[in-house]
């Protein structure tokens, strides 16, 4: 219980401080404040993909349907967070670059992630039998995961990026943030991650209850 209160207070503080205490970035100005929400949301959408894939591997190893349910839940949440990341990214793109959509590499990668989640959920809805659905969707989720490294190579070659990179990591991949920014960014990252796992847990509970009701 205590961590829920902590999350509420923390999240509220983060939202308030983002607009009052955090310094605007030198080049982008106030627009850069979306960074505290956009980056954690994007991080969660990738994390959900990883969680779904691990659950899929575990399902194939143990044949325990619980893991398949988890994988489905993680994908549903992943779709939600990817959508949020796309929308917040688009708002930023309009303010900073002048148009909502530019086929920037990051936008393209998120878009492909959206396609993968969509395809995965379409596959799940196309197979009514539980064990069959579990096996087929697990295999697909692993297949999708192994193609991601190729996308990382391919996408930036096709589209040139305007995405701000200097704000988080510099060219030597060292974290580059002023103390004030990181004091706000990392708690926000943590808060969004906790929210994701909380939602994940709640969905599991709902699935269990509805399974009990059917019996």
């Amino acid at each position, binding site marked *: 219980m205590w961590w829920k209160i902590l999350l509420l207070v923390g999240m509220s503080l983060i939202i308030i401080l983002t607009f009052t205490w955090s310094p605007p970035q030198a080049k982008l100005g106030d627009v850069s404040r979306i960074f505290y929400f956009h980056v954690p949301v994007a991080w969660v959408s990738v994390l959900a993909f990883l969680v779904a894939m691990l659950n899929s591997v575990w399902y194939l190893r143990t044949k325990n349907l619980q893991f398949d349910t988890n994988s489905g839940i993680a994908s549903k949440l992943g779709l939600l967070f990817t959508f949020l990341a796309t929308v917040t990214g688009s708002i930023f793109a309009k303010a900073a670059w002048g148009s909502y959509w530019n086929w920037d590499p990051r936008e393209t990668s998120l878009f492909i992630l959206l396609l993968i989640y969509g*395809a995965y959920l379409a596959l799940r809805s*196309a197979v009514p039998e539980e064990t069959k659905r579990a*096996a*087929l969707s697990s295999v697909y989720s692993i*297949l999708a995961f*192994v193609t991601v490294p190729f*996308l990382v190579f391919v996408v930036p070659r096709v589209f040139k990026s305007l995405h701000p990179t200097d704000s988080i990591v510099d060219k030597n991949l060292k974290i580059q943030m002023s103390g004030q920014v990181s004091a706000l960014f990392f708690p926000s990252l943590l808060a969004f991650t906790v929210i994701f796992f909380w939602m994940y847990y709640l969905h599991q509970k709902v699935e269990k209850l509805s399974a009990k009701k059917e019996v």
Partner: protein
Amino acid sequence: MPTSLSLWASRVLALLGKEIKTELRTRYAFNSLLMFSVVTLTAVSFSVGQFALSVQVKAALYWLILFFASMAGLAQVFIKEEEAKTSYLLKLAGPASIIYLGKFLYNWVLLLVLQVIIIPLFVIFLDLELSNLALFLTVSVLGSLALSAATTIIGAIVSKANVKGALFAVLSFPLLIPVLVAGIEGTQLATGGARFSEGWGQLRLLVSFSVVMLTVSLILFEFVWSE
């Protein structure tokens, strides 16, 4: 597990032979691949009319036609087993890895034969200039290798699902984006008169994608096949 490599290879080839034999009887998969490509090519040709297309557009068209032709025909290799209810017999015939490799080889051969027919048509109708023939052919062969490596296992997944038609393309497209991008870039280089060494990056990507896909498919195919 098979005892020796030669026995194993002969069983894979036997399955490939069986697929080709049944295909020659009905020509269902090949006809749908071929007709799809010809229809698309004609439609594009008509809409372009007298205008000359750029190298970029021609390369993209070439791969789009290959992609959608695969979507029209390549899932057939598993769907026909499910429809004829012969998949149970095939399960008795050998371990999953042999089935996968046989079906994959058959899909690859199908795409290669298709290319033998549509490349001349592309040259005739759309004036595709094969200025670097070696690079063009290598990209085509390796691209179809990657296409068939990924679509074979997705075809197996789709054949077990209830809605088969649109699902195949929906599932395949996100996974095939790297292949399409590398294929289009490689074909652009080849038809734009680049040297062979300039296409190394694309060829490497196609080869590594195929290797990764084949390895993962060999591990995962058993789970799909046993459903």
